């Protein structure tokens, strides 16, 4: 079963709040996590996204698509990175997410990817 695990906010806020030692530890943590998930065969994909300030949002206004600068959600709630993992159960996806939360101490969303076959 595939799940997407998502982090929100801005890398900069994190560093500003926590300082440079935290940053070093954070990088080491992310690399260790990535390595573990590759070795366990659970990692499908993971990426960091550009800072929210670099995003554009395209809305439908007055009958046409209109792009504006900025992310869709508020900066601190805006998607900033994700993992897609292929795991045996939701419990395992939550376990992986918990490992991340224990470190970054900020909320993480876990959501099933819709790849199930129909039940007929």
């Amino acid at each position, binding site marked *: 079963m595939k799940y997407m695990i998502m982090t929100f906010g801005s*890398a*900069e806020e994190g*560093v*500003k709040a926590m*300082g*440079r030692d935290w*940053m*070093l530890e954070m*990088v*080491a943590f992310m*690399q260790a996590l*990535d*390595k573990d998930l*590759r070795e366990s065969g659970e990692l499908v994909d993971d990426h*960091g996204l*550009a*800072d929210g*300030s*670099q995003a554009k949002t395209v809305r439908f206004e007055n009958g046409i698509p209109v792009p504006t600068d900025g992310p869709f959600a508020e900066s601190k709630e805006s998607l900033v990175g994700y993992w897609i993992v292929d795991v045996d159960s939701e419990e395992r996806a939550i376990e992986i997410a918990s490992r991340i939360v224990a470190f970054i101490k900020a909320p993480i969303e876990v959501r099933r990817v819709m790849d199930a076959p129909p039940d007929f």
Partner: protein
Amino acid sequence: MQSNIEDLLRELAPQVLGALVRRSGQFDACEDAVQEALLAAARQWPKDGTPDNPRSWLLTVATRRLTDQLRSETARRRREETAAALEPAVPGEASAYDDTLTLLFLCCHPSLSAPSQLALTLRAVGGLTTAEIASAFLVPEATMAQRISRAKERIRSAGATFAMPPASERHDRLRVVLHVLYLVFNEGYTTSSGPELNRADLTTEAIRLARMLHQLVPEEGEAAGLLALMLLTDARRAARSTADGWIVPLDEQRRELWNMDQIQEGVALLTQTLGRVPVGPYQMQAAIAAVHDEAPTAQDTDWPQILALYEVLERIAPSAVVTLNRAVAVAMVKGPLAGLALLGTLDADGRMAHNHRLEAVRAHLLERAGELVAARDSYRKAARMTASIPEQRYLAMKAAHLA
């Protein structure tokens, strides 16, 4: 698969494709047929041994695949025309190298987008499989296969033929080819952490193709310049990042990790080229890289010479990026404030508006000028703007040190 079989197949790929296209004129069908022959060889030769005439083997198998393919098509007219034109494989043709150059021009056809040019060049000239190219660019194989397929259709609908470009276009077309090879090199040259072995292979492949091109057109100074630039840049690869994937800037790199053989080769190429042929931007960039690479320590770097070279580069190929790099050299020779003043002239330049490098250089110079608060803000701004994770971390760390 044994690496010597792999190397042999990659070397023969463009020669076989060139020979086949020369006869049948259907680039896309021939390219598919050659791909299949390469895959067949990759499966059979390790078991049965390499044939006595590998090129002939590949050409025979590819020809057979091509005729099978044409036979199964419903367009009768096309079938009759091309089947009549096909002859049995003849080994040892003298035009092998000319064909590779023609192929290179075809794959870098101006009607194609850059990603398509890269993908098609790597497959038809580089002899890489679709899977290898997909892996190198981190896209699914099916996506890459489609990209290559559509590129070939585009070439056909643009009316391109398997022939050297007319003399009047050759200079511009060659510039496109050089740019494509430079892009391949750059793709491989992004610093990254994790199991990114494919990235290093792309750099090696770019150097191999640049070397091939230089041998095909030895009189072209810019082809020599590009190869020299790649060698002199790649020479520093081992020192550019730590084991943990952190970027190490040039002035902090451990120079004992630099590849001296590549540096010597790059410098020798430049010595043979500079001053004998019209100078061009790749030669100039290579010359600047050579000055860096020849300094035993960062402090020994001949910055006045680098500044002089940037001034020439700016005259022959002006761009905002060149001005930016020149600002760094100005700062090293005349002090950070002079460099910052030059950066100020770029602020009004629309091309630089979304470029994180301007902020990163500004931050660095502000730091050197002792303006630490302004430097920190600039580092943070640059960190927000970059699309490279190792670079973002590096810039954020620089800001954190000034907080």
